């Protein structure tokens, strides 16, 4: 060890002491847990698309499809690998572990969770574990959100195995796949007990959960469901503010109409989160007032609520000034200026499909990806049931199609959630102690 190296560490200690370390990014491309490492701030190399199997199509199985997203690659815009997990169980969302080495993906019907190794070779993920004890351990059904905290995954669920309505909770598993604890969503003090998304703000020691609907509703044909007034009563109407350290609910906000995805602003110093309510087509802001009391407030409208456009996924820009919103029913992608989050203003919209659900943007905001499938019984039918992934370039004014993949033509199924991986750097796999590693 030389003198120069020693002083490098000493200098780093000084830098830490002075508080001049690089600012911590709260999230990643741009909607992941703030604990997730290895931000992809440049060009993403791969898209991992968690895909519902389709009866009569290909192997009919749910699968993780990986697509080459690097424009410089010979296989750009092509499917380069697919890992089938067996059976169909309503594949839905996925999420990385904190080290970004593993991708957890859940099924809403049979509550199975599949763990893929995406760190060793992100071009070719490998199924390494299947977790089947969620319901047995917790009574919860429908693992939806997979949110990394150090060494663990927090899972937001949608239902339960007794009433199959939306009363549910949060489960915590170790990265090794072992169940650790269960935390019911409150049903008292104005709580409806429903669950959906999770979003953590470590700096404020808080996290938020939103509320959707239970197994009975999400496994019922949408056309039939909307004609059933009793069933339509069983949607979530709350956001819950939790104490992150104690995992105890602190405050319940009334947010009518199934608030779904929650995004904290990524801008350093911002302390607000935004969500969209699916049935009422509204944007809601969660922030604290002058008395440091957290509040939820309706701040905007998405499309024409009378037409039930059904806002589903949202994606916030890294600088906290833009919000993409997909509305499923009219197949439209909207862009809101949220520079003033109390007054969102729509500045762009484009029909991007016959039905659109998930939306993900790159950290630099220059690329936007959308998929079509919402739920197997809620997707449109006939000619409107297109099942695609579309990649767009965004120049600040117009979305331009870069490539698209027809998942039905490719005999893959229905594409749902999208996550990114970076290029494999051989050096990053160079583990000390292996032959010729030094």
């Amino acid at each position, binding site marked *: 060890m030389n003198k120069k190296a020693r002083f490098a*560490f000493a200098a780093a200690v000084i830098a830490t002491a002075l508080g001049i370390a690089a600012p911590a990014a709260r999230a990643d491309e741009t909607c992941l847990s703030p*604990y997730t490492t290895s931000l992809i701030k440049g060009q993403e190399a791969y898209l991992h698309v968690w895909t519902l199997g389709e009866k009569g199509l290909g192997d009919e199985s749910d699968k993780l499809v990986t697509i080459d997203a690097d424009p410089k690659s010979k296989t750009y815009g092509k499917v380069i690998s697919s890992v089938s997990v067996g059976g169909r169980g309503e594949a839905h969302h996925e999420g990385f572990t904190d*080290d970004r080495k593993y991708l957890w993906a859940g099924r809403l019907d049979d509550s199975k969770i599949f763990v893929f190794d995406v760190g060793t070779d992100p071009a070719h993920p490998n199924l390494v574990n299947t977790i089947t004890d969620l319901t047995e351990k917790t009574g919860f059904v429908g693992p939806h959100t997979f949110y990394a905290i150090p*060494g663990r995954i927090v899972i937001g669920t949608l239902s339960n195995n007794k009433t199959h309505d939306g009363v549910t909770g949060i489960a915590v598993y170790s990265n090794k796949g072992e169940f650790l604890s269960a935390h019911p969503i409150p049903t008292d003090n104005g709580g409806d007990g429903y669950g959906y998304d999770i979003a953590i703000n470590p*700096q404020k020691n*808080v996290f938020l959960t939103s509320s959707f609907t239970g197994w009975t509703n999400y496994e019922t044909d949408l056309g039939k469901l909307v004609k059933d007034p009793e069933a339509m009563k069983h949607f979530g109407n709350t956001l819950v503010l939790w104490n992150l350290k104690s995992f105890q609910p602190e405050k319940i906000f009334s947010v009518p109409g199934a608030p779904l995805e929650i995004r904290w602003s990524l801008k350093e110093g911002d302390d607000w989160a935004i969500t969209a309510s699916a049935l009422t087509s509204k944007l809601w802001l969660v922030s604290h007032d002058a008395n440091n*009391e957290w509040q939820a407030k309706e701040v905007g409208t998405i499309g024409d609520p009378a037409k039930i456009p059904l806002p589903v996924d949202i994606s916030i820009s890294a600088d906290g000034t833009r919000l993409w919103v997909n509305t499923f029913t009219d197949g439209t992608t909207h862009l809101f200026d949220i520079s003033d989050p109390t007054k969102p203003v729509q500045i762009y919209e484009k029909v991007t499909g016959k039905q659109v659900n998930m939306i993900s943007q790159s950290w630099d905001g220059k690329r936007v990806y959308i998929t079509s499938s919402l739920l197997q019984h809620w997707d449109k039918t006939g000619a409107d049931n297109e099942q695609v992934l579309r990649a767009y370039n965004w120049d600040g004014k117009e979305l331009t199609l870069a490539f698209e993949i027809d998942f039905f033509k490719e005999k893959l199924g229905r594409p749902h959630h999208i996550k990114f991986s970076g290029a494999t750097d051989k050096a990053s796999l160079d583990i000390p102690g292996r032959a010729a590693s030094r």
Partner: protein
Amino acid sequence: MRMRASVFGALCMSFAAWSGFVMASPYAAAEPGAGLALPAPGSYTLDHIQQVPFGIVLDGNRFPRMLSRYTSGKITLLSFFYSICADPRGCPLAWDAFEQVRKAILTHPELYGRVRLVFLSLDPEHDTPVMLKTFTRSYEASAAIVPWYFLTTYSYLFLNPVIRNMGEEISIDREASSTDRLVLNHLLKVFLIDYRGWVREIYSNQSLDPAAILGDIKTLAIEATNGDDQRR
């Protein structure tokens, strides 16, 4: 070599001490204002995340010791580090947090003798037992109250299974490394371990808040005093 290490250790100590007294916290953790207050120690529970794996480590000489000797019987705060780590979001951040926790324990007599601090080197080729002993000596004055161990291993053959089982991934940053300076990519993780050797909390650079760590330590101390940790 010993003199250089000693000088270096003294430098680190003084800077860390200085940071604790003078500077604002560099941690991206709970802030005042609208942030929710940390819960009272003992009012919440910490999950049993995993058991510390088997391992052989070295402490000051080449005599092999069980890792469990340093991860059970007391409440343990453990971090991986390497002495030439220069990433301000990595080892130095952990060092500063450990220093602040150590100072806080010195002001809490109810925790005297119940907590240990452990740094385990990720670089056994450079961080020899003799060199690390210098760091340990730097904290001998408070060792009876809160000892701080600087451990290493014989080689990566011994180290790799431990870090892999603890969920810590490392790799060589070849671009940043040079012949006399190894740079390791690793995710900062600090492990809080209970009397029985169970990891009960893991902190990253997003959550490495000395106040939260101290609250968790007190929670484990209360749990042990009350005999509440019987479920494992």
